[in-house]
């Protein structure tokens, strides 16, 4: 009986130790949103060229550069920014509840979304495009029929291909773009489709440099906006002013070149504030 008590106790101790050490590791959870001198900004963590968490824990990408610039105009230094990962499914919630001040995370302005959140910008005009291997002969949407194509499960890019662009394309769906890119590299698929900005970000990575090219198709128009809480027009106006300044002082083009440049990505000129290309 005594022995059994000991084992039971040790099991409890182990469970507790696990709980304690695990909780102890959680140091960056100073809660309270937007309070004090910090600003919380929602970005993606896993999109090279747009929003990427780097090995040293810092963040890089076009969305990050834009957000940093805007934050500076709002009166926050880079070290006052707290980056928050916002996955696609949770962006509206995060804004509505004030979890983040604004979101720069490949957030296309659409009518459905505008019912739930307000948008500043747009700050970039992207298009659905194809990423293919250098030397591939795919040059237009209809070339895709009978070809192997990869996109993210349930994404609008995937739906576009199936409905209009190339209904006979052989579509494979994964839950992330990097899986698709891996398939492209290994030759399992002929093309990957989503916004050209996202594709350019991957193609510009050191490990992939020179292997892929953008087909340069404009299969759709994606107006990336900065999401703010519905009705927060003060912030929206300030962000719009900041974006205008970013374009006029050249920082915008600099950020585009730095993040997408290596991929031979021909960017659209900086969009006018409030001008949405359908």
């Amino acid at each position, binding site marked *: 009986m005594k022995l059994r008590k000991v084992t039971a106790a040790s099991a409890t101790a182990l469970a507790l130790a696990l709980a304690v050490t695990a909780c102890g590791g959680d140091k960056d959870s100073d809660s309270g949103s937007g309070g004090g001198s910090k600003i919380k900004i929602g970005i993606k963590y896993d999109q090279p060229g747009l929003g990427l968490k780097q090995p040293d824990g810092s963040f890089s990408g076009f969305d990050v550069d834009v957000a940093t610039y805007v934050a500076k105009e709002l009166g926050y230094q880079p070290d006052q920014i707290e980056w928050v990962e916002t996955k696609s499914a949770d962006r509206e919630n995060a804004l509505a509840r004030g979890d983040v001040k604004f979101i720069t995370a490949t957030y296309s302005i659409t009518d459905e979304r505008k019912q739930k959140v307000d948008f500043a910008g747009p700050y970039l005009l992207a298009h659905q495009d194809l990423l293919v291997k250098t030397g591939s002969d795919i040059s237009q949407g209809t070339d895709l029929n009978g070809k192997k194509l990869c996109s993210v*499960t349930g994404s609008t890019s995937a739906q576009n291909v199936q409905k209009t662009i190339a209904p006979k394309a052989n579509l494979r769906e994964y839950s992330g773009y990097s899986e698709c890119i891996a398939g492209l590299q*290994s030759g399992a698929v002929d093309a990957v489709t989503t916004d050209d900005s996202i594709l350019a970000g991957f193609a510009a990575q050191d490990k992939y440099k020179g292997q892929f090219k953008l087909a340069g198709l404009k299969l759709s128009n994606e107006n990336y906006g900065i999401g703010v809480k519905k009705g927060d027009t003060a912030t929206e106006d300030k962000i719009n002013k900041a974006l205008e300044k970013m374009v006029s002082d050249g920082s915008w083009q600099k950020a585009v070149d730095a993040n997408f440049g290596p991929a031979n990505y021909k960017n659209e000129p900086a969009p006018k504030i409030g001008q949405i290309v359908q």
Partner: protein
Amino acid sequence: MFDFLEGYDVLGAFWMTVKLTALSAVGSLVWGTLLAAMRVSPVPLMRGFGTVYVNIVRNIPLTVIIIFTSLGLADIFGVTMGASDDFKLQGFRLAVLGLVAYTAAFVCEAIRSGINTVPLGQAEAARAIGLGFTQTLRLIVLPQAFRAVIGPLANVLIALTKNTTVAAAIGVAEAATLMKSMIENEAQTLAIGAVFAFGFVVLTLPTGLILGWLGKRLAVKR
């Protein structure tokens, strides 16, 4: 109230779930029984293989296994299950393969525990009348073991039904995949979730009740 269902083939998606479940169930029953036989076999190396297999497969999240069938097996090792040109079919077959590989580990453990419940005397008597290992297992032990583990196997089946949702990771058009795109397009997350939850309850509850009843009826009374 349920007008958001319009334009979506919910029944078709659940039919895919049923197909995935049925094929994987048959496959994992066969492979799991073989694994259990290996784990009690006279050849030490086979015992070792069985043990290592179960301990590795059981400890990896199913998502990783399913993704690996597609990214690893199909793309790198060229195992496309006879459907290298049709990703829909390939994804389905690979998902079945992954589910079989995973579920078989649990089937194996259930059957092994069933073998444990067969009284010593049964196997001794079998050997006494000159039956070899395979004969003892096939004719005497396994038939009794199976009847003892219908309950646990029913639960493996229920878990399998729910686990088919992981096939969404490689784009198989089953219930969870449809749910994901519905959530992407529609605003009623909660209602959509409720519909799919109801679907799974409909699929799994009767399975559990029927097989549970069967297990009690067929149990070897001792």
